[in-house]
């Protein structure tokens, strides 16, 4: 395989990284909100959270992207393809992240929350400053896994016209008829990106290694 083709893959991988990074970050903010809605004692809030998760976790990302990109225009909302791609990915990953976090929240010792109560924290502050960081720490490996999964699922955003790594590989495989080489190269690029993510993740885990709770 020529360097020229490989470079085309690398160029496309830049989009993969960009779209993933943006949507995973946005997704995390959404997931924290959704997770607290689900755990809320307010029943309708909790129901909304659960429906959100049910929909975005229950249907394929492909279908969600198609809905955002192709169905919204029919109700007069024309979504550009980059916005559709990021929104679709962010909604999807947030539903998974919310479920992961929920497990983490169950592991936050009650005493930590009571200490915040006593110090006069509002529920929002307790959530933001105490429960969320501890829950994130407890579920860090799962969250990093989810980020890596999402990075790979980003291949589906080609359906709204973004030519990212997988799509470029498919295009090149179709014109060069050397799919094994092209896909191996694409796989290696994904691996390289994900190794960086994993290293970043374990750094983060170390930084959060204030020992056992």
């Amino acid at each position, binding site marked *: 395989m020529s360097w020229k083709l490989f470079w085309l893959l690398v160029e496309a991988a830049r989009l993969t990284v960009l779209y993933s990074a943006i949507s995973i970050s946005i997704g995390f903010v959404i997931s924290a909100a959704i997770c607290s809605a689900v755990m809320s004692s307010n029943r309708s809030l909790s129901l909304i959270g659960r429906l959100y998760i049910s929909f975005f976790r229950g249907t394929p990302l492909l279908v969600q992207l198609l809905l955002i990109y192709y169905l919204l225009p029919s109700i007069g909302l024309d979504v550009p393809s980059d916005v559709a791609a990021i929104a679709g990915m962010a909604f999807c990953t947030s539903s998974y992240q919310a479920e992961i976090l929920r497990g983490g929240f169950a592991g936050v010792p009650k005493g930590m929350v009571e200490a915040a109560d006593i110090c006069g924290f509002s529920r929002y502050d307790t959530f933001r400053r105490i429960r969320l960081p501890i829950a994130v720490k407890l579920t860090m490996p799962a969250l990093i896994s989810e980020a890596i999964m999402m990075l790979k699922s980003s291949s589906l955003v080609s*359906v709204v016209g973004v030519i990212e790594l997988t799509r470029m590989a498919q295009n090149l495989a179709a014109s060069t008829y050397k799919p094994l080489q092209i896909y191996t190269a694409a796989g290696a690029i994904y691996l390289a990106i994900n190794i960086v993510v994993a290293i970043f993740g374990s750094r983060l885990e170390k930084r959060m290694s204030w020992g056992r709770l």
Partner: protein
Amino acid sequence: EDILAKVKADGVLKVGTETAFAPFDFINDSGEHVGLNVDVFAEIGKELGVKIEWVTLPWDGVLPGLESGKFDMVAGPATITNARMERYRFSSPVAEATVALLKKAGDDSIMKPEDVAGKAVGSGKATAQLAQLEEFSKTLPTPVDAQEFVSFNEAYAALASGRVVAVANSYPNIAYVAQQQSDTFALVEPPFGVKTYFGFPGRKDAEYASLMDAVDEALLKMKSDGRMAEMQKKWFGVAFDTPEKITEAAF
């Protein structure tokens, strides 16, 4: 609102296609979108006096995109069949789509289409080409073992790795593959089965009629003045005779 009027007013014709369908649409070594469609639409643009704006999507997204108005028509050509004509309006045919076989280079056991009797032959799932292969199989002493793939690109991979001995696909596509990868693949002449054609799908709705008429008019002009034949030669190595209009397909 009349779409042709809108296109002319904007000065832009938006065309959707997928770029994994050589030699009609594909990405070349320099990362450029090239192929017969690109050349044909460049000419259509000249005829209509508008610029062409390409929207490239995977095939799964192309027809939904057409239906939701993301673009005005589709370039990625499709075999014109009666079932499909119920849903879309097709342009005047731009190439023959009759089915031929691709084999591994140096495979002497297959010299003519009939030689695949009793062997594993791949094709695209739910495609017109697969249907033709199955029809052809019935005429053979022992039927072929027809293997279905999610797209032709996987079928070629299966051929290269020896999982099938041949792939049935439209003549222009196969001829191009054989020419590009002469070390690996070879064309089995002649094509077989009934004659079918490739056309560009567009919408049947009334407001699109004027646009599709104008495109047909441009295509006919290109066919009559030889531009079409020239482009076919460039991309397929041969020129095809294509009818002016298909109203009733072979199946």
